[in-house]
């Protein structure tokens, strides 16, 4: 196997050195959606072995351009040349020509296992045994761990993402498009992925890399193209340009607004990485007068056979506090979310394990908990947090039935608890959310836009905005800034802080340590279904050394190496 690899590497280098014509040329591609120009005469060249960054704020047109390249969308004008030859229309032609894509969110068969998905995805009729060996070889080579035998529906977002990446690299494409591949990976996994990407590039693959994390771009890419409102506005050299300047190019006129926000926002979070500096951790722990959420001895098996359940989890969230739970996806986060929202009820006799506003709610359903002031932002945008085929105003009703609280009269009165929908009022409320989080892509039809027509980051903003609508007393958020650009991430962080200041308890479940460190008052780690004791961030705030010490400790706990909770399976495969 090794020999094969070496032979290939040599011959790829050979190709890479002797062929200097660009691998891929995108020429003046334009695409309009009704009145909206998503791509306006965009050109881009990709050389063999190049890692090219495509950056821009949410709704700038990045995914649209890449879907055009992948053949999913037909452009209105322009052409694409691969190795000097025009590329035929359609995904099939693009695939046959060696273009593959990691989608921002995943397109896997939910009912099949990871291995079966790979088998279908590769479509080469390989025997399962051989395919498994190959997959494991790839996973080992590139240093990330994938679940091959569990059903995809049981996997968390991070695991989906790893599987998608694996599928694509196993095809060894000529052009690999990666649309925010690290959005739900841990830093370690991301590092592993970067190695993968570099290795592929060295073998001659051209890679287009979309990300909102400018530091990643700097670490990885040789060239960058910045899109703004569908146009190329800059082609900076990421190695030489200041991150700040790149962020400014992305935001254009909005840069001023960014500067304002930056004062309150931690500038070093992975998402708003314009200027590297020490994160401002919340300094004081809020007084623990009212407890919003109290969890004690919560034990719950996963609904899936091999899923990770919860064992004996205890923590509490006070009013005014942001409590962070760090952990790699797939360590019980889903079970915890379902138990807290009421999507899954606790067994009889265990009602007391979860107390919301002082009431035992283990046996109360979603609606009852919502009435007690719980709001949730789940991880999965499509099919969980929102329904793509419904309009935004219908989607806003999903979390608004049976609630009567909220800051203004409209919000208090639009929701219904049965009977007829108040669609016009729901539309007005949706309009508010659109305005508050500056959501783009819904200009033409407003609240009647179908949810799936929004770009990933914009839909995420919408779901977060909806979660904040009814002035919740307890806000449960998973990965709130997944796929959201720096500007909007700052806004979302700000909104979470404001919610806490207003007296809400915020439970933030994330794998993004930067985000957790920037927002949380206390952080605990969930690994293998067990929760560590919480760290009080204020204790580490004084020195930069303290901060990196905390980060280190959290990182170790997350990978299960921090003593108490170890994960034998994971170590074995890693």
């Amino acid at each position, binding site marked *: 196997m090794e020999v*094969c690899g070496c032979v290939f590497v040599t011959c*790829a280098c050979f190709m890479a050195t002797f062929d200097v014509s660009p691998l891929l040329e995108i020429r003046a591609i334009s695409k309009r959606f009704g009145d909206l120009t998503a791509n306006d005469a965009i050109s881009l060249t990709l050389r063999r072995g190049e890692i090219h960054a495509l950056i821009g704020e949410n709704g700038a047109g990045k*995914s649209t351009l890449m879907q055009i390249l992948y053949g999913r*969308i037909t452009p209105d004008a322009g052409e694409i040349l691969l190795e000097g030859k025009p590329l035929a229309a359609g995904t099939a032609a693009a*695939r046959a020509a060696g273009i593959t894509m990691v989608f921002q969110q995943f*397109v896997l068969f939910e009912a099949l296992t990871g291995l079966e998905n790979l088998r279908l995805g590769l479509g080469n009729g390989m025997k399962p045994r051989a395919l498994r060996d190959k997959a494991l070889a790839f996973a080992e080579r590139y240093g990330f761990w994938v679940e091959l035998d569990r059903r995809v529906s049981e996997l968390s977002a991070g695991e989906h993402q790893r599987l998608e990446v694996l599928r694509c690299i196993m095809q060894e*494409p*000529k052009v690999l498009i990666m649309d925010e591949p690290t959005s739900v990976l841990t830093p370690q996994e991301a590092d592993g992925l970067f190695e993968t990407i570099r290795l592929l590039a060295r073998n001659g693959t051209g890679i287009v890399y979309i990300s909102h994390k400018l530091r990643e771009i700097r670490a990885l890419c040789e060239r960058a193209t910045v899109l703004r409102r569908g146009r190329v506005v800059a082609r900076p050299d990421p190695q030489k340009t200041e991150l700040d300047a790149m962020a400014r190019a992305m935001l254009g006129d909005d840069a001023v607004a960014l500067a304002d926000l930056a004062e309150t926002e931690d500038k070093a979070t992975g998402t708003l990485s314009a200027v590297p500096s020490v994160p401002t951790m919340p300094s004081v722990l809020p007084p623990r007068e009212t407890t919003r959420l109290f969890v004690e001895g919560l034990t719950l098996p996963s609904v899936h056979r091999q899923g990770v359940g919860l064992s004996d989890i205890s923590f509490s969230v006070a009013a005014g506090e942001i409590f962070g739970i760090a952990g790699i996806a797939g360590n019980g986060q889903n079970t915890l979310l379902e138990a807290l929202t009421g999507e899954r009820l606790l067994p009889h006799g265990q009602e007391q394990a979860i107390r919301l506003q002082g009431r035992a709610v283990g046996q109360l359903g979603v609606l009852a908990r919502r009435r007690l002031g719980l709001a949730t932002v789940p991880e*999965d945008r499509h099919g969980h947090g929102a329904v793509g085929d419904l309009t935004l105003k219908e989607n806003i009703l999903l979390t608004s039935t049976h609630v009567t609280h909220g800051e203004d009269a409209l919000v208090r009165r639009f929701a219904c608890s049965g009977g*007829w929908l108040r669609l016009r009022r729901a539309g007005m409320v949706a309009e508010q959310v659109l305005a508050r989080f500056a959501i783009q892509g819904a200009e033409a039809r407003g609240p009647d836009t179908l949810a799936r027509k929004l770009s990933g980051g914009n839909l995420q903003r919408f779901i977060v905005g909806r979660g904040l609508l009814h002035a919740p007393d307890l806000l449960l958020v998973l990965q709130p800034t997944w796929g959201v650009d720096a500007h909007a991430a700052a806004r979302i962080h700000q909104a979470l802080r404001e919610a806490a200041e207003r007296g809400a308890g915020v439970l933030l479940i994330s794998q993004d340590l930067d985000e957790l460190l920037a927002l949380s008052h206390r952080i605990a780690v969930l690994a293998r279904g067990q929760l560590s004791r919480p760290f009080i961030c204020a204790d580490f705030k004084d020195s930069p050394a303290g901060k990196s010490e905390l980060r280190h400790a959290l990182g170790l706990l997350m990978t299960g190496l921090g003593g108490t909770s170890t994960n034998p399976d994971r170590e074995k495969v890693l």
Partner: protein
Amino acid sequence: MLIVRIEPREFDTTSTQGARAHLRVLGLAAVVPLLVSLLLGGLIFLSNGIPPLHGLHAFFIAPLSDRLGLTELLVKAAPLALIACGLLFVFRANVWNIGAEGQFILGAIGATGTALFLVPQDSPFCLPALFLGGVIAGAAWAGVVAWLRAHLRVNEILCSLMLVYVAQLLLHWLVQSPWRDPQGYNFPETALFESSLMLPILVERTRLHLGVLFVVPAVALTWLLLNRSLFGLAISVAGRAPRAARFAGFSQKRIIWMTLLVSGGFAGLAGAVEVVGLTGQLVPRISPGYGFTAIIVAFLGGLHPLGVVAAALLVALTYLGGEAAQVTTQLPYAAAGIFQGLLLFSVLAFGFFSRHRVRFTRAVQRPAGQVLQASANLPANPSANSSTNPRVDL
């Protein structure tokens, strides 16, 4: 090894050509099935020694040439449309009630029972009471399915279907012994209702009765409930994304109960209308399979209330055609069933192929150990991108 692959057709409805292509395919999916069923029907006529054009004329055109035929069409389309309206609720929520036939029969039994035993004949409320009796009986019959499905997790397809046979046996037993008309010369029928308990006839010397007009409010109500009520929203969410429904707090059990009760209620109403408007008594052959045919109607109508009306008229025509063809071409009445089957299959098949394409590819067998390979002979890329419910969010 040959791999057969079914991929969704992707239309880029955002570009004008893409949108046009999409419309073209949708148009074809509506017209082609009709043509294909006519063609196949013609072949069936031919194989029975009947000139196809003559047969088709006798089947589809002759029945509509007079007033009687036209009114008969409405009389037959009404129960189909009523039942199918109810079926929209269950099917949109992904609950597979295929036992509307049983619920229809129970509706007829309920209305008859109310007429025979419960209402004082001269009260002004007696007519509405009959319909209420039908609705309750139909809903209760569907309620059995709901209970089995929601609380015991019994497959609703099986139990709703089997309850049809129970309903038929119940009907036969009732008309044979306890409810048989003592003055009825031993025919298995109940006594005829008083004329005050019958719906008025709308057109002289036809069977067109007032009950046919029930379809109008029923369709309007269905549309309103599906599109403008929280119940309808819960149905669309549960049918499209069960996980989102759970997240939103729409209880799965409740949706099963409510949709089944509503669909049973509609079927029961149709059964009651049939007895009160048409037969005026309970007879063993109260339904020529309306409950099953309504499933075809619901899908032919694209699960939309107005579509259902059009589909009901079309399918009712096959019933009339079957009767007419029996007389003029000596084909058995079952020919109606054949046309209904042809229609359903071609509609479903063409609907499927308008959304998917089939590809044949030859698998490339490669040595297992070869991990890296020159990028020149890349394997055909994934169809995994085409899960039945693709969730691409970019």
